[in-house]
């Protein structure tokens, strides 16, 4: 076979480098059969625009097609996935993680050209979703999914309820906001004559007319728009707590009541303007605070990553069963790229398990017959047969979700503004009642006046606005720096941290990037060329890394190439039999003295072992800087599921005094965090894999570090793009500063309340004073919140020119020198 490819040719479909299996059709190169098939299918249906919109847009097909979607024929599964169905048409929304470019949108929206029965499809790019309408008499749900899978867009199907309710909630919120905004604008317009001292040059009947229209406009604001505050206040009171919505709801109620009274009784113009303005601004604040990162999910548990169904052997026949029907003792079949759903014993085949979901370690591990394979691993290579030893929910990893840490919901009462509200509300009521009592002896109407006026001006709208805008903007600034927070309360929790716990693999190490060291010194160039020629033929991750490492050293033809999954590769290069792989593969019995922390690839020529390439973890280049900066404010510690092999190397980074715990199970990680918390520590956990999920959940703030934020992250409070790891200390410092700014904002809004109270207690708060004081305080507090965070963002290098400075290269240079 001619394997000489001087220039690396990219696959027309997926853009991967074409290896030895290169296929050329009509002058187009393909890396594998799968890509070619997809191309031909699209070509036959006149869908080649797909390749014109973007270069190499395709997705490589991962696994061969089996009957793995047959569970979709199950009626109960269907009913959970299909949103709408009548006699002819069904509609279902699929989450398709592979959506990444304009070509994807185009192809998925032209699905109807590809298959009879599909009526239409619509892509939501940001949510990575496609809604497909199809005629279920012509095509079944299973066939739709198979069609998607056959062109590379396999949906990730999970039966964990689709978010239909939130969609309606969201719409309702926009309705409320729209109505309040509408009323606010019009009431302000009609109140204008009032501000210019009514009665002096406007006739009285106009004033009444305006007042009545204002009242009518205020009705939907009070009954529709502001209902969010009343329900929230009610919920809070039911739990015997006072959140910030209690005084807000009280203020709104009194504002409305007094407005109705004044207008009906012709005693004044009422406070309809203040009411509508207040509700509108508060809703805008909610919206600002509530904007979340739609395409990121912070609530994922293992069920989102596990398959919906697996293949079970039943009396010699294969059948598809959903995971909940699996029992201990069942025999299951796991194919290439499929996930092991529960702890099991290997019965047949050569297991080569990739635990990257669980530990963050991308290197597959080989398991032999009779050994236990833990749930969450992904098989790479041939088909294996397993016998389950545990139930899906009781396995080594998944058992973690039975822990009580996953039951409790975090109470929002811990937020700063709610804490303040706990003291604010009783104090406010006390002042109001005392004032009422004071005036009640002399002047009953004035007592009512003062009482209601206090509740109106003291309504903590400035406070309620300062926190959403300040924290919402802080969250947006962090988002620009690729730290995505679940919600704004995370900032407050981050600011309170005093202990930082690191996971090792995947969190502080570079996934996939490893240092390669050859055991026997330097290999002669001619021998390197032999190895290089061989690895070019393999797509194994280790091979491609070796290929990069070896560089360009001439090329040889390879004959009799063979690859044994999980073992190694061999071939005849330039007349020499070259073998690369595990110790056993090159006929060596490796002495396992001491824990081997590294992955080794042995080399042998003509059956004589020469040495091995050691792949050791490479730490993130920013690690040293990050550790040094964090040490100034926090105690650090490290927990890892691996053995102590790299302890001395880690101590070069962390120093001797940092606590390090190795061989920690997912449960032990969780308990470690718990112990720290019992000592009164506020813990920040940095992790990445499912085995950190418990620790992330238990910690006061859990940040998941991810190389590709769209791919995978366990349930956490925040997701950090790994490329921004070096900014972590600045981000934490920023959140501490944001908390201080928040307290200062409280003082500002408190000052406004004090001024208002001064007038209100004396019983002479005029609508004009209220109409000036309220917008003034609101606007100034909003402006303060946004400006303060902008300034802090600049100060900590998270905004502006400093944010884009190439920090990484410098730090790489630094640490190279220090280590050698």
């Amino acid at each position, binding site marked *: 076979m001619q394997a000489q490819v001087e220039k690396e040719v990219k696959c027309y479909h997926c853009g991967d480098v074409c290896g030895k299996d290169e296929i050329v059709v*009509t002058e187009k190169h393909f890396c594998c059969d799968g890509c070619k098939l997809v191309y031909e299918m699209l*070509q*036959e249906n*006149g*869908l*080649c*625009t797909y390749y*014109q*919109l973007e270069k190499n847009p395709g997705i490589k097909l991962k696994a061969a097609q089996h009957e793995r979607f047959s569970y979709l024929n199950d009626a109960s599964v269907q009913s959970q996935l299909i949103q709408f169905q009548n006699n002819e048409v069904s509609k279902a929304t699929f989450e398709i993680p592979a959506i990444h470019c*304009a070509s994807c*949108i*185009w192809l998925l*929206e032209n699905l109807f050209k590809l298959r009879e029965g599909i009526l239409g499809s*619509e*892509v*939501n*790019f*940001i*949510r990575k979703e496609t809604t497909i309408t199809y005629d279920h008499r012509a095509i079944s749900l299973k066939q739709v999914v198979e069609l998607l899978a056959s062109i590379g867009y396999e949906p990730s199907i999970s039966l964990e309820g689709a978010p239909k309710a939130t*969609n309606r909630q969201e*719409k309702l919120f*926009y*309705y409320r906001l*729209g*109505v309040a905004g*509408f009323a606010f*604008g*019009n009431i302000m317009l*009609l109140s204008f004559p009032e501000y210019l001292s009514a009665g002096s040059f406007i*006739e009285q009947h*106009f004033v009444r*007319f305006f007042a009545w*229209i204002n009242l009518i406009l205020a009705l939907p604001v009070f009954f529709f728009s502001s209902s969010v505050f009343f329900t929230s206040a009610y919920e809070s009171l039911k739990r015997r707590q006072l959140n910030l919505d209690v005084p807000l709801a009280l203020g709104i109620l009194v504002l409305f009541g007094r407005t109705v009274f004044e207008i009906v009784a012709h005693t004044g113009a009422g406070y309809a303007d203040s009411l509508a303005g207040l509700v509108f601004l508060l809703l805008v604040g909610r919206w600002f605070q509530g904007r979340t990162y739609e395409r990121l999910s912070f609530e994922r548990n293992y069920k989102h990553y596990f398959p919906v169904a697996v293949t079970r052997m039943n009396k010699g026949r294969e059948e598809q069963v959903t995971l909940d029907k699996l029992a201990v003792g069942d025999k299951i079949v796991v194919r290439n790229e499929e996930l092991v759903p529960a702890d099991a014993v290997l019965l047949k085949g050569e297991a080569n398990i990739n635990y990257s979901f669980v530990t963050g370690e991308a290197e597959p591990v080989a398991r032999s017959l009779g050994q236990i394979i833990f749930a969450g691993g992904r098989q790479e290579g041939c088909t294996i047969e397993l016998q389950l030893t545990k139930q899906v929910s009781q396995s080594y990893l998944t058992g973690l979700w039975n822990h009580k840490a996953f039951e409790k919901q975090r109470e929002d009462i811990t937020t700063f503004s709610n804490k303040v509200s706990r003291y604010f509300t009783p104090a406010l009521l006390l002042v109001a009642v005392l004032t009422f009592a004071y005036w009640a002896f002399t002047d009953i109407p004035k007592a009512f006046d003062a009482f209601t006026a206090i509740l109106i001006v003291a309504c903590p709208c400035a406070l309620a606005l300062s926190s959403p805008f300040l924290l919402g903007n802080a969250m947006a600034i962090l988002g620009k720096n690729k730290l995505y927070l679940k919600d704004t309360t995370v900032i407050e929790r981050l600011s309170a941290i005093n202990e930082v716990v690191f996971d090792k693999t995947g969190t502080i190490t570079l996934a996939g990037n490893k240092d390669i060291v050859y055991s026997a010194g330097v290999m002669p160039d001619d021998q390197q060329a032999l190895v290089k020629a061989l690895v070019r033929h393999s797509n194994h991750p280790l091979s491609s890394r070796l290929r990069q490492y070896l560089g360009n050293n001439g090329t040889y033809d390879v004959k009799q190439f063979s690859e044994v999954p999980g073992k190694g590769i061999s071939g005849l290069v330039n007349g020499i039999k070259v073998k690369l792989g595990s110790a056993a593969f090159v006929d060596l019995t490796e002495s396992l003295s001491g824990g081997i922390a590294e992955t080794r690839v042995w080399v042998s020529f003509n059956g004589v072992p020469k040495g091995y390439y050691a792949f050791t973890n490479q730490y993130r280049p920013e690690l040293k800087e990050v550790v040094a900066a964090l040490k100034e404010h926090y105690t650090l510690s490290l927990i890892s599921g691996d053995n102590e092999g790299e302890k001395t190397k880690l101590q070069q980074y962390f120093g001797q005094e940092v606590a390090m715990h190795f061989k920690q199970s997912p449960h032990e990680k969780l308990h470690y965090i718990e112990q720290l918390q019992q000592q009164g520590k506020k813990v920040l956990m940095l992790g990445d894999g499912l085995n950190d999920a418990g620790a992330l959940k238990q910690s006061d703030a859990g940040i998941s570090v991810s190389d590709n934020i769209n791919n995978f992250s366990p349930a956490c409070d925040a997701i950090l793009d790994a490329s921004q790891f070096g900014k972590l200390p600045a981000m934490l410092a920023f959140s501490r500063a944001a908390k201080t700014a928040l307290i200062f904002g409280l003082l500002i809004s408190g000052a406004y309340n004090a001024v208002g109270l001064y007038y209100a207690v004396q019983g002479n708060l005029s609508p004009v004073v209220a109409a000036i004081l309220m917008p003034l305080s609101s606007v100034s507090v909003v402006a303060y919140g946004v400006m303060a965070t902008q300034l802090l963002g600049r100060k900590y290098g998270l905004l502006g020119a400093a944010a884009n400075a190439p920090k990484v290269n410098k730090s790489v240079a630094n640490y190279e020198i220090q280590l050698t």
Partner: protein
Amino acid sequence: MTAIFVLIIISLIVAVGFLVAFLWSVRNGQYKDSYTPSVRILFDNDKPSDNTHKS
């Protein structure tokens, strides 16, 4: 001056019109996806260029 009554009522009707337009657009899902339509509009729907490569 009584014209003001008429004018204000007309202005309110116009304002309500805009409110209804807003509510309708929310209901219609126009705020659901703010990115994909910007890509979709660039696709040529009826261009038969797809078939030029066909052998």
